[in-house]
């Protein structure tokens, strides 16, 4: 009986869902950052700093890889493949840079490299900015068919967290690799854990 009057399926449906949710989530996150937190006034000066670009590339790479992971987890029977390894590689690369920065530094400088001026708020602001993206990503997942629910929730959270970190970096004054390797990652892991926990509740179908 399911066959009667069946409609052709538009193969671009899934991509459309992703685009719509990503655009809405990003827009709200950027509006919040620019409107309430304010963009960093030194942003223009950062453009000539290599660490600025490394930081942006770090967040962008994590976002891209996590989105790919989401895309795979949303379809029954697809394997994650190298996605977890690629995420680990990016994280470790930042840690290597952190060690390189910390090794020659004096003890006082080390403290400054790790804590910066904003370590206490950084993870929470990233999680806050990631919130609209988190909702958007869970909405994407809910319309599709993930079969491993905690993992699918975690991937949605990780993608939201790293995109949130990318947006937050427009406000953030920190450029030290140890700071990014610790506090950015902590901020990303907040929605990740929340997603892993909520996945089995919210993503059932």
């Amino acid at each position, binding site marked *: *009986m*399911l*066959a*009667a*009057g*069946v*409609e*052709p*399926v*538009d*193969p671009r*449906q*899934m991509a459309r869902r992703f685009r719509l949710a990503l655009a809405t989530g990003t827009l709200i996150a950027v509006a919040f950052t620019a409107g309430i937190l304010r963009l960093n006034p030194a942003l223009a000066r950062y453009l000539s700093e290599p660490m600025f670009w490394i930081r942006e590339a770090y967040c962008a790479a994590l976002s891209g890889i996590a989105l790919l992971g989401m895309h795979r987890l*949303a*379809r*029954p*029977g*697809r394997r994650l493949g190298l996605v977890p390894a690629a995420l680990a590689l990016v994280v470790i690369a930042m840690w290597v840079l952190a060690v390189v920065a910390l090794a020659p530094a004096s003890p006082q400088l080390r403290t400054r490299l790790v804590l910066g001026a904003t370590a206490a708020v950084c993870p929470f602001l990233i999680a806050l900015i990631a919130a609209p993206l988190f909702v958007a990503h869970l909405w994407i997942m809910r319309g*599709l*068919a993930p*079969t491993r629910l905690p993992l699918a929730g975690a991937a949605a959270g990780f993608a939201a967290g790293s995109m949130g970190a990318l947006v937050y970096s427009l406000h953030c004054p920190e450029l030290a690799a140890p700071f990014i390797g610790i506090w950015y990652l902590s901020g990303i892991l907040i929605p990740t854990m929340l997603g892993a926990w909520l996945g089995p509740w919210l993503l*059932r*179908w």
Partner: protein
Amino acid sequence: MSEERLRSLFVQSLAGDEQAYRQFLSELTALLRAFLRRRLARLPDQVEDLVQEILIAVHNQRQTYAPEQPLTPWVYAIARYKIIDLLRRRSRSDLLHDPIDDDAELFTTADAEVAEARFDVAKLLRALPDRQRLPIWYVKIEGATVADTAVRTGMSVSAVKIGIHRGLKALAATIRNTA
């Protein structure tokens, strides 16, 4: 062996070929039934419900299938998900069950329940609002076209399609909660 054939039928179905889809569903039903009988040897009464639930899931999630992917792992992952879902629900509800139920189950067999399944569809449908129940009844059970159904119910064509889609989703949810 059946991968190639089922996949080409399914790809045609995704392009809107009703004949191919009917063929696909009936072959898939037979495969699922055999597969589940082996897997759920201890729960023969659950097999038919689960077959239906998996078919509805395949139907509702068909946009998540990418034509360049092999079909078997996709169907298998859906079936596995639904089996685990069923077992999880049972292990939870079994704690509340009184073992005296087992006596009554001696007299019901899976085959008798197949005949009852048709009643169940009518019973389940009755719980849906008219705007979902009528399109499903006319199009999916009587076999009328969407356009005819629109005329008979006085609904617009897109309202009929939406009614079918939402109604099937609601049915799947009901089956899931009562099974």
